[in-house]
Every structure is written in structure tokens, then in C-alpha cells.
């Protein structure tokens, strides 16, 4: 049973794990993100929600410095992200890599340690033990030596999560970790997210399934090029703001939008 977390405000530290001010990104002429500003609290699970093409992945990539922005500022624990890379963990979309690459699950998880190694040092026994531990945390300990193309989609996703765990970060970015995974993996991921949260880590998740938003996240960011709403889930995940975010494409929402009290007493 997971108790409803202690009031978020009390945990709020002086320096926010992530503070984004007026971030704008444009690939071509049209901006993909316009003046995005928000600040997340430490120890929260934050869902980033919005329709296709709203710029959710772009926001994540721009915050990580993977793509250039045309304006704005990203601060991680009060400093530019470039100085804070070691406290940031990243789970890219599963489709972004070729899973036929000649490597095994343990080796992929070990990549999470690279940031802690020197330029020329190879991962050692300690890193391997830690990587195995991370694999065990996502229920993949038995698959350490498995070639990654022989894993199912859900297992591949869990390997990516284990790699992010191995980064031993304080602030995590996850790009659609729930996309196309089976029920077992979804459960493994959400258990893991809760555990990270209990450790005081902050996790920002691009999410698609509106039906589970209220169960999974403390705060939500509603995004459609601009920020349409940001704040605690019970206040922000409302019919009105969602309509605004998604335009008229929200017919099915009426069913999934239930009182936030559903969260109580429902645990993993």
C-alpha cells in the first residue's frame, strides 16, 4: 500500500530540481514550443501531457540540451544543465535505437555508468554489480546476458529504465516509457517510479494514457506548443483545461475523468 504522499509543499526545497523559463524551440519557421515556463518540486512525479505534435518530446530534448532552443533558460538545481549532467537521468523513446545492435542487456545498463567514469576508463566490477542490481529492480536480472534483440518490447523498455537507474541521478526524464508495453511492464515501471519518488527523486514523464494520469502523477504539465496548465494533478487535470489542451478531440475523456479521490486506497 502506498499512502497518499505527504503534502508536496512541505518537501519543497529552496532550489527547484528543474526550472524552465520562456523556453522556445523552432525546427523550421513555426515554433514547436513557445515561451514554456514552469518549475517542478523535488520528489514529485510529473506527467507531461498533450496531443501529438504538442512538443512533449521536444520539451524533454530541449531541456536536456539535445536540440538547440531559440530562447529561454533551463536550470537544473539552480545551475545550467551543462554543469549538472551527472544528476540527470534520461530514458529515450524505445524506438530511437536499433535493438539489433551487438550487445546484451547488462551492457546497455552499464552505459548508464559512463557518465561517472573517466574518459578512458572501462566500467569495472563495482559498476557491473550496480548494473545487475538495477536490472533486478526492474525484474530483468535473469536476462542480463541476453542479446537485446531477443527481448520483448516491454523488456527492452525495462532495460532502458535500468540504464537510467544506473545513472544514479536526482532528476529523471522519461520519454513515453509506457508506450506499447504489456501490463507486467507497466506495473514494473510504476512501482519503480514510486520507489524513485520515495527516495526523493524527481521524475518527469511524457505520458499518453489519460486514463491513468490521476493514478500515476502528483503534478501534470498540459502542453500544446504553449503551457496550457501546470500544477498539482487534482487542480490541473480538469475537463476544462484538457479541452483547451486537446481542442475538440476529447470525447472519451468524460469516462476517464473521475474524482481524484480514486487515488486513495489504491496502491500497488
Amino acid at each position, binding site marked *: 500500500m502506498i499512502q497518499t504522499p505527504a503534502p508536496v509543499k512541505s518537501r519543497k526545497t529552496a532550489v527547484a530540481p528543474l526550472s524552465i523559463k520562456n523556453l522556445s524551440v523552432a525546427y523550421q519557421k513555426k515554433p514547436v514550443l513557445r515561451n514554456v515556463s514552469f518549475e517542478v518540486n523535488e520528489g514529485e512525479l510529473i506527467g507531461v501531457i498533450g496531443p501529438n505534435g504538442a512538443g512533449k518530446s521536444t520539451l524533454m530534448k530541449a531541456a536536456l540540451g*539535445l536540440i538547440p532552443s531559440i530562447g529561454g533558460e533551463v536550470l537544473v538545481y539552480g545551475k545550467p544543465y551543462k554543469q549538472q549532467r551527472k544528476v*540527470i537521468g534520461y530514458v529515450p523513446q524505445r524506438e530511437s535505437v*536499433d535493438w539489433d*545492435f*551487438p*550487445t546484451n542487456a547488462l551492457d546497455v545498463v552499464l*552505459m548508464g555508468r559512463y557518465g561517472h567514469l573517466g574518459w578512458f576508463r572501462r*566500467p569495472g566490477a563495482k559498476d557491473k554489480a550496480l548494473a545487475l542490481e538495477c536490472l533486478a529492480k526492474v525484474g530483468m536480472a535473469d536476462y542480463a546476458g541476453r542479446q537485446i534483440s531477443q527481448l520483448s518490447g516491454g523488456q527492452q523498455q525495462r532495460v532502458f529504465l535500468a540504464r537510467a537507474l544506473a*545513472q544514479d541521478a536526482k532528476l529523471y526524464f522519461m520519454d513515453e516509457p509506457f508506450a506499447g508495453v504489456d501490463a507486467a511492464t507497466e506495473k514494473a515501471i510504476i512501482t519503480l517510479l514510486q520507489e524513485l519518488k520515495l527516495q526523493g527523486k524527481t521524475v518527469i514523464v511524457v505520458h499518453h494514457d489519460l486514463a491513468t494520469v490521476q493514478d500515476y502523477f502528483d503534478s501534470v504539465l498540459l502542453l500544446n506548443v504553449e503551457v496550457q496548465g501546470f500544477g498539482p494533478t487534482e487542480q490541473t487535470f480538469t475537463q476544462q483545461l484538457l479541452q483547451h489542451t486537446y481542442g475538440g478531440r476529447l470525447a472519451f475523456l468524460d469516462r476517464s475523468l473521475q474524482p481524484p479521490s480514486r487515488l486513495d486506497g489504491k496502491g500497488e
Partner: protein
Amino acid sequence: MERIWSMLADPNMQWIFLGCTLLGLSSGVIGCFSYLRKQSLMGDTLAHAALPGICIAFMLTGIKSIGLFLIGAGIAGIIATFGIGYITRNSKLKQDAAMGIVLSAFFGLGIVLLTLIQHGSYGNQAGLDKFLFGQAASMIASDVITMTIVCISLITICTLLFKQFKIISFDPGFARGLGYPVAFLEQLLMLLIVVAVVAGIQAVGVVLVAALLITPAVSARYWTDRLGLMVVLSGLFGAVSGAIGTWISASVSNLPTGPVTVLAATLLFVVSILFGPQRGLVAKRLLRKSVKQRYQRENELQLEGSIKKEAAL
């Protein structure tokens, strides 16, 4: 066997043998990364782009030396990659189309310059046209020394930066997130490919040199699921191809070394695709057969079991 030894007794032949083996080794090693980064054709593009670079280097200096050609080919290669990048960024064309355009444009320019050189007043011009299809026999001691240096530095860099090259080949986005200078590492890989290509042009020629980058790497992939081993195997396959190529072309009169080397690499590829464990066609066929047999046997056993049960009742 005796013929090999007698052939190797000739010091000239020794140089060529060593040169081709080293060439195969270094191309095989660096080729792995370009293959895994889905840039197999990049080697071909860089090789064709090298031709005008080499011609211009020769026209400006009038000297035939691998060092100078490396610079010329390197600059041409950089311009070619920028060209490809520019086209893919600013048009709807995909990378393969952009490569095709750049490759043929540079090659066309190269042939024009080559013709100019042949008909012009350049002394010492004999041999430059050999760069089209390569002529291993023209290798001299100093070329082989250059090749040795190239080979050693290439392998050293790949060993030291193995971790980095692995992660930018598998997941460049994640590598960038870790703070690795991905653009720099990608350029470095590209540079190493240019170096391997230019070192190989003299022996194998502009047209075929890319085969030494691609074929050993693809073959090696059939034997292992581990990158480290794959790189070693690929280097080995390349080296063996080079050795076989030199040996056959020396034993059979008038066979060109470069093309024979490429054919030897291709033979290794055919063996790999057929007999590689797990991935090979034969292994796959056998696995399917054994799975089918086991399934049928289990079905039969089950059937027998249920019949016995019925009889017992």
C-alpha cells in the same frame, strides 16, 4: 605452402603483403562502427569524394605522396559530408539520395581532373590513374610505413575510445545526455574512415575500397553478438582478405590485388551468412527444423498419454 614462402622471400612482395594485410585490418576495425551507425555507404561516398581531392593535391604540388593525398582527400571528404548534411537538412531528400548526388558529382569531377592531369604537362603523372582500380604492386616501403602508422593509430584510437564509439553508435541521444561531445566523436569517426579509405585507395582503388569497410564488418556480425568481438573479428577478416588477395594475385599471373582482395572478403561473407551460429542461414534452418520436430514429438506423447488415460478409465 612452399609457393607462399618463396613469394614472401621477395622483399618487394613482403611489403605488398604486409601493406594489404594492414589495410584490411584497419578498414575492418573502423568499418564496424560505420556499419552499425547505418553509414555503410558513407565509406563509398568518402572514397569517391577522395579522388578530386587527391587530384587537386597532386596538381598543386606535383608530388605523389600518401601524406599529401591524405590531406587532399580529407578536405574533399569534409566538403562532401557537409554537402550531404546540407542537402538532408535543407530539402526533403533522404540521406541515401543526398549521398548518391554528392558521390557522383565528386567522382565526375575527379575523373575530369584525372584526364586533365594525364593530358597536361605534369611530370611523374604515371600512376595517378591507377587510383581508380588500385595497384598494390606500386606500393613501396615508405607507403607501407605510412600504412603501418595509420593502422596502429587507428586501432589505438578505437581501443581508447571504444566506450564512446559504442554508445554513439547505439544511442547518440543518450550519449549527448551524458555530456559526451557527440558531434566531435562523430566527426572523429568520419575522419578515421577517410584515413582508412585514403590509405586503401592506392592498393584497392576508389571504386572498390568501400568494400573493405563494409564486407568484413557485416561478416563479423554473423559470428557474434558482442561488439568487442565483432570489431576484432572484422579486423581479422579484413586482414585475411588482404593476405589472400596478395597471395592469389602473386601466384596467378596478372590478377589485380585489390579486386581479388575484395572477392576474398566476399567469399568470407558468403561463408558467414551461411554458417554463422544463430544468425546464419543454415543454423536458422536447423533450429526451425528441431523446433518443429520437438513440437510434433510432444504432441504425439500427449496424444499417447490421453489414449492411455482413456484406456485406464
